[in-house]
């Protein structure tokens, strides 16, 4: 297997973009990534795109061909593949791209993600997102996605004493980080009171505990290390790419407050990179809900199980903390165009490692981690990126 590097990144603004279509978004991200990589369309050997639910959101399948076509690549006839693992589709696309380059089959590969979520009514969006859970034995019973995470939150609070305020602190921190991210959907500060006074979605989770409905696209360009150094002065090395699965239903898990898929993907990633959690300088984790960030920092091994709430309250996960989490603003405040999220996480880490993150720069970051979850933990994808090979 060959070592792989990220040599270019591109991302649209995240938000409600009624004037932009699915294909507009994808093309913008892809072209920006190619420009950043000093590569041209003719250089691309393959394309992988993460997309959760274009079938429901824009009534369009066959996304691989569509994006290759509108990116101007139809005449080159390159393989273009859509991959799907609900909200982990982007992370999975990155992993597929990394495997394609590592295997030696392809040299320059684009790994991208895109989701256009605001072309349908909110009720349709809620229902589409619920399809990440088990439709027959969760959805048909009235489970919503926030509802499932609310049940994780309730049990986490019951078992470990995590407080409602600690959940709110995740949202407050991530909104603060997003104020420094020009691409973010919500570039404004919120307070704990704002969270506590926002409407209930699924008790104990409120509107400000939830990631928003977002349009957006993101793309990275991958290359084998030897080629990467020719094209780019600051290639970022992919030190680990790991994926794990678990039961699709929340109720069948070994422990409802632990995402075992995260635990296993992380353990594999740390082993592959030859490092431990304490070596990570910065991480983008899957905070689709505030409780999800608390579970993530525990399950990734940054803090002990059950202590994610106090760790957040003590500022450990803030930009200047021991392990800065979600400097981009996370899914919560940067936005969560589901298929694009896993790629955007990698872009944020690339920018952090290149010292291009502006006001939200984590000083001295050399090794970063991304953590992308599908559903309530049926899939988890973890990547470790580094400025050193």
């Amino acid at each position, binding site marked *: 297997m060959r070592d792989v590097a990220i040599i270019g990144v591109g991302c649209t603004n995240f938000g409600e973009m009624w004037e932009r279509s699915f294909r507009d978004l994808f093309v913008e991200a892809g072209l920006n990534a190619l420009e950043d990589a000093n590569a041209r369309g003719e250089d691309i050997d393959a394309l992988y795109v993460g997309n959760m639910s274009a079938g429901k959101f824009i009534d369009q399948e066959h996304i691989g061909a569509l994006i290759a076509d509108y990116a101007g690549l139809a005449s080159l006839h390159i393989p273009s593949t859509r991959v799907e693992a609900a909200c982990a589709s982007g992370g999975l696309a990155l992993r597929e791209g990394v495997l394609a380059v590592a295997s030696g089959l392809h040299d320059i590969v684009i790994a991208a993600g895109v989701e256009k979520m605001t072309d349908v009514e909110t*009720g*349709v969006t*809620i*229902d589409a997102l*619920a399809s990440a859970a088990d439709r*027959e*034995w*969760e959805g*048909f*019973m*009235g*489970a*919503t996605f*926030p*509802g499932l995470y*609310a*049940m*994780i939150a*309730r*049990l986490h609070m*019951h078992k470990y004493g995590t407080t409602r305020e600690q959940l709110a602190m995740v949202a407050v921190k991530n909104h603060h980080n997003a104020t420094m991210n020009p691409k973010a959907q919500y570039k404004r500060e919120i307070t704990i009171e704002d969270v506590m006074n926002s*409407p*209930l*979605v*699924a*008790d*104990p*989770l409120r509107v400000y505990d939830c990631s928003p409905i977002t349009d957006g696209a993101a793309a990275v360009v991958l290359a084998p290390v030897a080629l990467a150094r020719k094209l780019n002065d600051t290639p970022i090395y992919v030190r680990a790419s790991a994926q794990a699965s678990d039961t699709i*239903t*929340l*109720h*069948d898990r070994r422990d*409802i407050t632990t995402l075992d898929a995260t635990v296993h993907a992380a353990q594999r990633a740390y082993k592959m990179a030859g490092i431990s959690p304490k070596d990570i300088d910065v991480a983008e984790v899957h905070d689709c809900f505030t409780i999800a960030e608390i579970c993530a920092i525990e399950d990734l091994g940054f803090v002990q199980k059950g202590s994610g709430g106090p760790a957040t309250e003590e500022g450990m996960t803030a930009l200047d903390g021991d392990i800065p989490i979600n400097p981009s603003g996370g899914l919560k405040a940067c936005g969560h165009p589901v298929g694009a999220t896993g790629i955007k996480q990698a872009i944020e880490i690339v920018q952090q490692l290149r010292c291009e993150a502006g006001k939200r720069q984590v000083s001295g970051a050399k090794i970063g981690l991304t953590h992308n979850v599908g559903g309530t933990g049926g899939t988890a994808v973890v990547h470790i990126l580094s400025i050193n090979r």
Partner: protein
Amino acid sequence: MAVPRLWRRIPTRYNLIGTECQTCRGLYFPPRTTCPMCRRDGRIVERKFKGTGKVITYTTIYSASAAFHRQTPYVLAIVKLDEGPQLTGQIVCDPDEAKIGMKVRPVFRKLGEDGPEGVIYYGTKFVPAAEVS
């Protein structure tokens, strides 16, 4: 939703019929055709569950998809059946009444409908065990 998808699971949804693996004695609801522990060595037979159990965790849903919008707010829980398997279902009770560890029993209820002219589907919900329905 087309009728066959609901119809084929009527015994399971109405009567809580799951499966038992006679190799490892593992109990599963909903039914599985392959035992997750024994896989091809498993011997799967039908198994009816009593439906009594306790609440592991719960939420009150205030914002639901279009199909459940009219039922909000409603209590949704993960219930651990007395025999062992866990499932997701609604608890017919006041949101303030729901508690972790609360004992529940099953009731046959309408779960939803597919628009004004579509199929009405039924299944199992739960009530606090002390309540008489």
